[in-house]
């Protein structure tokens, strides 16, 4: 490992990748939220238009996108709790590595609870 930088606690490890993932998922959720507030507001000004837009949410491709969005939210929210624990819990920094894997484990578990149900709802109606 000649070209691995020495003496770094952070680069290339869990601390870095959790940060990268937290950032990417945060941005993705943000842009979805912008669209989602606007499409929901249609309910006030154009009820039939709302039903038409929501019909696109029921297609298989948006259905798959929604599944990815939920995966992103699961990671971001659970890793957010990890960040908060690192900041406020005395032993947070010591256990940050373990907590990352707990986050991944919980996110996978919750995703397995969500994805089959959602995908069955999506694909049984196309």
């Amino acid at each position, binding site marked *: 490992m000649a070209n691995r930088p020495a003496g770094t606690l952070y680069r290339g490890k869990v601390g870095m990748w959790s940060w990268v993932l937290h950032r990417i998922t*945060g941005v993705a959720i943000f842009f979805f939220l912008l669209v989602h*507030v606007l499409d*929901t*507001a249609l*309910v006030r000004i154009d009820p*039939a238009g709302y*039903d038409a837009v929501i019909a696109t949410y029921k297609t298989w491709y948006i*259905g798959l996108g929604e599944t990815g969005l939920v995966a992103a939210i699961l990671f971001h*929210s659970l890793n*957010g709790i990890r960040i908060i624990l690192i900041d406020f819990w005395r032993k947070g920094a010591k256990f940050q590595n373990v907590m990352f894997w707990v986050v991944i484990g919980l996110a996978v578990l919750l995703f397995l609870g969500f994805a089959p149900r959602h995908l069955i709802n999506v694909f049984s109606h196309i």
Partner: protein
Amino acid sequence: MSVVIETPRSRKRPGFNLEKYGWMYMRLSGVLLVILIFGHLFANLMVGEGIHAINFAFVAGKWASPFWQVWDVTMLVLALIHGTNGMRTLVNDYAEVEWIRRTLVWLLWIVCATLIVIGILALTTFTPCGDASSISLLGKDGANVAALCPVK
């Protein structure tokens, strides 16, 4: 290998530190958003028919209850400010030219404020009765709600 991290020695500075409150806001809103967003996803995508049950009548049914009204407005405001402040961090990290950075941060807050206003207006002025066509959209699922509408 265990790592010893020294306790940071930060000086106490007098005055109002907006960045500190921003930092605290990200954490406080984060905790609340976990509950609000998980509940939102569960109620809309997991219960019953999930995504297939969602239409105008479904929203009218939810917003007939003050519980979901308060839930949704709280989630709207907390999430938009959290997301916008998070995006501000990214802009501060990546925008190298000062005027571009400033413009983008302004733009973020303008978009945020606009969407909060639109979202709150949509929810607070919402009526399932709107006009004849929206009443027909309520269908049989929305019969309870339609019953509340004055006859036109």
